């Protein structure tokens, strides 16, 4: 018997079509279908962390809403933790943690600890599990000082730490994060990221996250799924995407003396700043060592570094349809 690969999230040819009414003059309205998600097929293995990215309006949030049972797909099938989210919404809710970065699920006017104890009852978490989890998250997310503070008085970074604990108190198998670091300062962002890494390592919680901050993706996700216009346009590891699209590297050299832009076969100077010059070259044409040799032949080099393409630039190029 051949063993089928285990999946915890599975989408097969999933589509979601909304009908949008467009006003055409007085009283006359035209109804037009909009394909927010248009045939997405995707499967996620338990314990993995997947980045789900795409430009605004690409269909990310609509996909998350279908996976969590908020929206019913127009076509295709979805299985999450072995359940159909649109049918078994309530049962599935106990196995999911969902965090929308732009929306709070905490009780605004009450101390943070009250939100936790309410969720304890709403999710019917066994008392010992609840105590244990709360203890863990208090430590990992440094919540002790925040517990007696009304949520409305917390800073965004503090609140996000509270939100993370809140969605994890019931031991969800899968965590959906919709822009979890939006609006956070660099320190808070890093706190969220390292917490997620720790969580995934210790509990094997499956994480699917949408974000516009590709540092999140580089730091957290091995796999990257890019969608645009409701379709998956790329689904691969971050390393493979970099390798495939990031063919253009940059050699930065500090010459002994300022000079005219160098003229070297296989590379072109994109920037000059005093004695420092930036040379772009294609990985397939030339190695960095070979290029350095050619540069040194023209002018003495004092220092150098090689810049790999940033994932941000690659993704931007993919969104624009420029990368091939």
């Amino acid at each position, binding site marked *: 018997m051949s063993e089928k690969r285990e999946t915890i999230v599975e989408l097969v040819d999933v589509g979601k079509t*909304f*009908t949008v009414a467009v006003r055409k003059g007085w009283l006359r309205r035209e109804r037009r279908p909009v394909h927010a998600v248009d045939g997405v097929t995707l499967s996620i293995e338990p314990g993995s962390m997947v980045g789900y990215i795409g430009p605004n309006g690409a269909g990310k949030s*609509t996909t998350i*809403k279908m996976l*969590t*049972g*908020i*929206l*019913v797909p*127009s076509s295709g099938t979805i299985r999450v933790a072995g359940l159909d989210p*649109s049918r078994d*919404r*309530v*049962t599935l*809710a*106990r196995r*999911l943690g*969902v965090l*929308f970065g732009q*929306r709070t*699920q905490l*009780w*605004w*006017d*009450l101390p943070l600890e*009250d939100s936790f104890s*309410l969720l304890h*009852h*709403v*999710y*019917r978490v066994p008392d010992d599990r609840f105590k244990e989890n709360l203890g863990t998250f208090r430590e990992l997310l440094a919540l002790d000082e925040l517990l007696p503070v*009304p949520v409305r008085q917390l800073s965004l970074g503090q609140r996000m730490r509270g939100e993370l604990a809140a969605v994890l108190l019931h031991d969800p198998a899968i965590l959906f994060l919709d822009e979890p670091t939006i609006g956070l300062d660099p320190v808070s962002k890093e706190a969220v990221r390292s917490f997620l890494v720790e969580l995934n390592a210790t509990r094997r919680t499956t994480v699917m996250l949408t974000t516009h901050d590709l540092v999140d993706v580089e730091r957290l996700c091995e796999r990257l799924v890019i969608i645009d216009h409701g379709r998956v346009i790329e689904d691969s590891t971050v390393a493979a995407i970099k390798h495939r699209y990031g063919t253009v590297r940059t050699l930065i050299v500090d010459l002994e003396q300022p000079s005219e832009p160098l003229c070297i076969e296989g590379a072109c100077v994109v920037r000059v700043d005093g004695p420092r010059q930036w040379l772009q070259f294609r990985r397939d044409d030339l190695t960095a060592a070979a290029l350095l040799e050619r540069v040194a032949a023209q002018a003495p080099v004092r220092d150098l570094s090689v810049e790999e393409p940033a994932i941000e630039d690659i993704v931007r190029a993919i969104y624009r349809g420029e990368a091939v």
Partner: protein
Amino acid sequence: MDELVIYRRLVGARIRADLQYRASFFLFLISQTLVAGLDIAVIIVIFTQVDTLAGWSVAEVALLYAMAGIGFGVADLFVSEVELASRHIKAGTFDLFLLRPAGTLVQLCAMEFAPRRFGRTIQPVIVLVIALRAVDITWTPTKVALVPLTVMSGAVIFGSIWVITSSIAFWTVDTQEIANSFTYGGYTLAAYPIDVFGTWLKRFVMFVVPVAFTSYLPVAYMLGKPVAFGLPSSLALLSPAVAAALALVARAVWRCAVRHYRSTGS
């Protein structure tokens, strides 16, 4: 049972949150009590001009008003929160209810619970006590049982109307006025002997939006009054059944509305 536990917890949280703004809480409580007082004032004003209304004395109409008022007040306290569905849909926060392992209606009513609405029932309860002493009723066990049963049925009927009319919000937003004309409007009609209305309005409150069952029919039965359209006065005993049926309709409409929301996301 689980839903009841969740409901109690969420309501408790809401009350604690409201008590953070203590002054405004008590001001609202007082204003709600006073507003309810205006309704009986209108009835008293009418009776300064006439001695009877379609054969009903002032004490009898007061009883009618009190029974409808308590039922309405209870529905207002526990179910009228459903009106806020439209606000949650617009703000996108309705999604949060769908993410939690509990019914959406229970969560909405619990999260928006407003204890200050309790003020609405104080005044009709006082009127009920006074009116029961003033009217002339030959009490039977059935009639005694009918007092609490009517109030409960009334609460369920008004609550169901609230749920049904608020469900419209899932299709088109900003429909609060339409919804209110059925809930507050229905309550206003329920507080008068329906014999004073025209035929169509009578049919409407008897068979379409059955607010006649919240007070008029049971009170007519207690007082031994003839009932509109010459129907048997024992029709009043059907109040609990009508309430149960309407509650089932309300549940179906709400489910249909949520299903619509989940398929359109608007």
